[in-house]
């Protein structure tokens, strides 16, 4: 079953391996026709099928059975068939359904983007910007939870969660022991740690990176700065943890590293998971070998004032003789 099959997505034909999902086939083509994905994560087994933002219309099932599929299907869970024809952005029906999905996802979302640290790199924000309405039609009380500390480094804002289960899969598959999961069912379900038990293992910090919204955020970066004022730089170090590659993105503000995250690819998924030592404890330039400024997509707000030519960061050494000579002039310009 390893022969290639042909699939046409929005009129673009691509040959993929048998057993590939429609979403991954679209990602092989790339560009605008890639359906957005909030819960599917290529590095996590079993993820996907929960958020329904990746729905597409299948107008022709396969070469053998050319009937269309009766309903819109989740492209992350539907595998391709030979001769399948799929419509994504060229079908108004899909776009309308996707706008509906976004509206449902936002029903219980607090819309506190001005406060949220994820704003600027939030998948839900991008999705809402592209497909959502200008204002909410929901007029009832939103579900609210108290915010929870998962350990001393991770902050859980359950209000913002869209229940994509990515963090649960991460904790299951990347870390060796899962101590947080989903409690309750349906509308009442919530991510929680049992009895506030600290998630305490070497890779727990990765739940921050996989979270598509601001539900899991870095507590060491909490309210430090807005993402778009920081300058992302690719860097690496020799991490002594055997599973950690040590390849990260450093987020600079001036000469300080405010935050360390894993590197993300064009679909917003991390390339390599990193360990907690790299993420939380190594926040000095001296710990890292800087490679280059991170590539930021032009459509991202982080791209404002972001230049991708490598210039070493300025380190201004105070020259005391010069400062003494100009003390009066300096005093006129400095407020405090």
């Amino acid at each position, binding site marked *: 079953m390893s022969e290639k099959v042909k699939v046409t997505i929005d009129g673009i034909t691509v040959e993929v391996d048998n057993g590939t999902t429609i979403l991954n086939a679209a990602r092989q083509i790339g560009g605008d026709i890639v359906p957005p994905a909030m819960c599917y994560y290529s590095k996590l087994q079993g993820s996907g099928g929960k958020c329904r933002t990746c729905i597409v219309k299948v107008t022709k099932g396969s070469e053998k059975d050319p009937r269309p599929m009766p309903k819109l299907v989740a492209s992350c869970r539907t595998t391709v068939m030979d001769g399948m024809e799929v419509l994504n952005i060229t079908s108004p029906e899909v776009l309308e359904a996707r706008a509906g999905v976004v509206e449902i996802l936002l029903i219980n979302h607090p819309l506190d983007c001005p*406060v949220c640290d994820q704003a600027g790199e939030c998948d839900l924000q991008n999705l809402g910007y592209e497909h959502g309405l200008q204002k909410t039609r929901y007029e009832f009380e939103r579900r609210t939870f108290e915010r929870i500390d998962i350990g001393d480094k991770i902050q859980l804002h359950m209000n913002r969660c869209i229940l994509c289960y990515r963090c649960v899969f991460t904790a299951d598959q990347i870390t060796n022991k899962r101590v947080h999961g989903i409690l309750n069912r349906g509308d009442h379900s919530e991510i929680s740690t049992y009895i506030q038990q600290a998630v305490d293992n070497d890779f727990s910090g990765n739940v921050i990176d996989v979270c598509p919204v601001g539900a899991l955020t870095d507590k060491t970066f909490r*309210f430090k*700065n807005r993402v*778009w004022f920081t300058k992302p730089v690719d860097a690496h170090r020799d991490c002594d943890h055997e599973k950690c590659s040590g390849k990260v993105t450093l987020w600079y503000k001036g000469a300080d590293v405010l935050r360390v995250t894993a590197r993300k690819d064009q679909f917003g998924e991390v390339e390599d998971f990193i360990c907690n030592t790299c993420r939380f404890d190594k926040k000095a330039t001296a710990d890292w070998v800087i490679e280059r400024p991170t590539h930021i997509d032009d459509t991202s707000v982080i791209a404002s004032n972001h230049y991708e030519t490598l210039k070493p960061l300025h380190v201004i050494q105070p020259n005391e003789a010069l400062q003494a000579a100009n003390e009066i002039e300096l005093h006129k310009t400095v407020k405090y």
Partner: protein
Amino acid sequence: MESLSNKKKVLEQKPLSFMERMYLPAIAKGMGITISHLFKKEATVRYPEVEREFSTNFRGMHSLKRDENGKERCTACGLCALSCPAEAITMIAAERKPEEKHLYREEKYAATYEINMLRCIFCGLCEEACPKEAIYLDGPIVPADYLRKDFIYGKDKLVEAPLEMKK
């Protein structure tokens, strides 16, 4: 050179007539105009004691607003600083403590908020960008000063006075 519009008019200077050569009637006429202006309505006002009425869309000094309970509205989201074409706005955010609930509206607030009035071009984009209706350019003309550092306005000058102090 040939004129482009063909509307060139050559001035001719006639010799002065007798009346003109006497000068005195012209001086009397000029003084008449000058003195008549003493009794007309003044065209100027004595700023800064008197101020003219501003147009409704005048953009003056910024003020950071409070909500109906007197809490500061600004959550230091940084959108004003992002939209500012002159990069005049800087801020540092902080987390609200439980005992400060009556001071700030949301869990994050601006611990310092500075606008460099020398950089500001009063375009009003910060006002447009603000999602919390926290900043408005509804103040007076920014006063002149002597030192550059005095043009960096902090929260002490920008935040509205609390409700009870406002009468």
